């Protein structure tokens, strides 16, 4: 069977695979067709019509994203008919769009704005409907702002919430001119099953869905001379930030990022990677304790597998959808919250600063972290542990506002005490990273030997498959862990909540027999998080992942338990993993939320 077909695009003959969409075919010959509702991560919807093209001999125009090429097709992408139609389509979209661009958070990074500018939409041939529509702006969530007046109903967010996340908090409701993207009974986002993952923000072509930003609050804190402002940066930020500042995806900018943060005026710049290492110590020990309770003590109150708890989107997901299964979660706080609790205790004591005067800021690839910092459980230091959470995008905005020439910055190191980290901490930013970091340490604790993978690279847990599994056989353990001799430690990794759902269902039905599972809410893990630079695509996430693993490979220390500052904090402050102090500051409880 012939799988190649020949078509003509603007007069040029091209050979493409049968079934290729006209959009893809045009891209192959360097012809760009504008799109709005199309996104590489999502299924084709074909509802915005901006990508219409003309097939010679056909009366009606076809949407390029949704029409497969057929042999002998002659396609025109820039005929007068196409140009005029596209212009009308854009004008119609704009007639219902609150195009107050200078006051919009997405100003300068809006796909609709870019197209309007490209097609020079100057006249107003259609009645402006915005004043007649009773649009809702939902600002109640600490993470996400949803402004219906900016929505063009392309439904990327709806498809994101359904296909990538399996949450379906957003849906299309009502019909005709009343049709809108909304939630259950049009409730506020923080009143429904939204996980705050922010993937809808990453996929929104306009300003209809944006993060709630805390840029001004942080500037105020920095300007306040009575405050000591501490900042932490998550692993995935250093490999994403560059995209907002003109670098290629996957550029590693750790040193320059630290330098930029110092230039912004933060009093101390430290690393969430440090508490990622700390998480491994706590979570690894917790895993071993649970294994012992189940396998040796047969404790009926303890269950396997143990699930990771670093991803606040995943946490809210399980709280909503599987409230009866919260006992599988590790009690460890996320690295962000561990850091927050320690800044206002350990760090404050060591630096002799009144915790009252400390403002703790975190830079995260994540919007759910904003919600997490806001949880009532997160006040174990006696204060709010993390005061403000900024996304990677917000940090880039601050850097630009400050007029910093990023290229000319010199590399700098994180400040001491909570700034040292290992490669194990860095890979938390990628799907499979927490698992890999945990195995590096846990295997060594149990056997006294390094995990049996070349150069510590546990390749089976890396990659982009939605669900990945690895079994590690434990042989000749140390005497203390003799009960684990011969046991195959079954581990699994899931990223994207739609995959988390599959794994949860397989656990509940008993189809799988995992001991330890890593769950990440976002596709690709944190590096594909809802607070990362826009646009996102599988290729961009791949580049970021390569950068993360390169960062790990370049670290002198690559196992959490070897981090000298981790050794120091246990010696000086915490005692040992799962100590009373650890329990108080580094562990938490979860809430049954239901649907």
């Amino acid at each position: 069977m012939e799988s190649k077909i020949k078509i003509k695009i603007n007069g040029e003959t091209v050979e493409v695979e049968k079934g290729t969409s006209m959009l893809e075919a045009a891209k192959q010959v360097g012809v760009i067709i504008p799109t709005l509702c199309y996104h590489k991560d999502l299924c084709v919807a074909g509802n915005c019509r901006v990508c219409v093209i003309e097939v010679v001999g056909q009366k009606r125009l076809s949407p390029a994203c949704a029409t497969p090429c057929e042999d002998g097709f002659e396609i025109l992408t820039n005929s007068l008919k196409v140009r005029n139609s596209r212009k009308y389509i854009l004008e119609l979209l704009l007639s219902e769009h609150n195009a107050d661009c200078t006051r919009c958070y997405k100003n300068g990074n809006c796909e609709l704005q870019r197209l309007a500018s490209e097609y020079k939409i100057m006249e107003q041939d259609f009645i402006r409907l915005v004043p007649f529509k009773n649009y809702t702006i939902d600002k109640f969530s600490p993470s996400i702002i949803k402004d219906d007046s900016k929505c063009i109903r392309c439904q990327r967010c709806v498809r994101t919430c359904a296909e990538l996340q399996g949450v379906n908090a957003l849906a299309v409701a009502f019909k005709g001119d009343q049709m809108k993207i909304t939630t259950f009974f049009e409730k506020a986002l923080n009143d429904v099953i939204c996980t705050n993952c922010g993937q809808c923000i990453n996929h929104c072509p306009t300003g209809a869905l944006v993060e709630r930003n805390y840029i001004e609050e942080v500037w105020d804190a920095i300007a306040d001379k009575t405050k000591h402002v501490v900042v932490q940066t998550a692993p995935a930020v250093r490999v994403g930030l560059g995209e907002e500042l003109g670098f290629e995806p996957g550029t590693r900018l750790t040193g320059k990022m630290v330098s930029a943060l110092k230039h912004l005026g933060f009093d101390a710049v430290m690393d969430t990677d440090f508490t990622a290492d700390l998480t491994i110590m706590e979570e690894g020990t917790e895993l071993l304790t649970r294994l012992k309770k189940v396998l040796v003590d047969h404790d009926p109150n303890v269950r396997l597998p143990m699930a990771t708890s670093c991803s606040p989107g995943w946490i809210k997901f399980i709280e909503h959808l599987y409230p009866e299964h919260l006992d599988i979660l590790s009690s460890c706080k996320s690295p962000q919250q561990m850091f927050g609790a320690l800044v206002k205790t350990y760090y404050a004591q060591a630096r002799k600063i009144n915790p009252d005067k400390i403002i703790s800021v975190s830079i995260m690839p994540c919007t759910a972290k904003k919600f997490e910092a806001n949880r009532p459980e997160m006040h174990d230091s006696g204060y709010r542990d993390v005061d403000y959470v900024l996304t990677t995008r917000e940090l880039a905005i601050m850097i630009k506002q400050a007029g910093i020439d990023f290229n000319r910055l010199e590399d700098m190191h994180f400040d001491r005490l909570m700034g040292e980290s290992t490669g194990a901490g860095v890979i938390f930013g990628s799907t499979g990273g927490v698992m890999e970091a945990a195995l590096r340490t846990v295997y060594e604790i149990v056997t006294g030997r390094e995990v049996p993978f070349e150069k510590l690279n546990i390749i089976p847990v890396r990659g982009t498959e939605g669900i990945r599994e690895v079994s590690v056989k434990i042989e000749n353990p140390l005497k203390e862990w003799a009960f684990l001799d011969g046991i195959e430690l079954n581990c699994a990794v899931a990223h994207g909540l739609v995959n988390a759902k599959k794994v949860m269902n397989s656990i509940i039905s008993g189809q799988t027999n995992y001991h330890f599972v890593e769950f990440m809410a976002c596709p690709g893990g944190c590096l594909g998080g809802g607070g990362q630079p826009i646009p996102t695509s599988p290729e961009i996430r791949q580049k970021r992942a390569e950068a993360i693993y390169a960062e790990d490979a370049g670290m002198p220390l690559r196992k959490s338990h070897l981090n000298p500052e981790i050794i120091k904090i246990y010696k000086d402050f915490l005692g040992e993993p799962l100590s009373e102090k650890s329990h108080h500051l580094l562990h938490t409880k979860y809430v049954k939320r239901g649907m």
Partner: protein
Amino acid sequence: MNTVTELIKNLADQHGRQRNNLLPILQGVVEQEKYLSEFSMKAIAKELDMSAAEVFGTATFYSFLEHKKMGRYIIRICKTISCSMKGSNQVLLAIEDMLKISLGETTTDGTFSILQTNCLGFCHQAPAMLINNEVYTDLTPEKVREILSMYINKIKEGAPNEN
């Protein structure tokens, strides 16, 4: 178990639990309850293992699947052009005046709700309206007052709920 939950379970048993069984289940609930409450939509979502927002999206797309609490008798007056040309507006005013509620509202005793509907297919006997499943045609303000009086009397005499 709550009666609505039970009803939904029975409907799901009867129609199935696939996504394409959602509509008959929604219709079944509306038939008994007159509207789809938050509670019923959540129960349906749970039964069919889908999100409540999707159920809401489907319910709000279709006419005759109300999601606000409705009276025992739902009056749906045709809003399309033939009925409009034959004076459906005056008929609506007469109903509003008699029941002392506006379009979209329900009487405080929970007896009547007034809604609009698209074409009922009775253009040749316009203006037309529905009261629950009963069609009334060739309406005039006088006629509609008589019809409503009949319903009010029926209730006074203690007519059982139509279900």
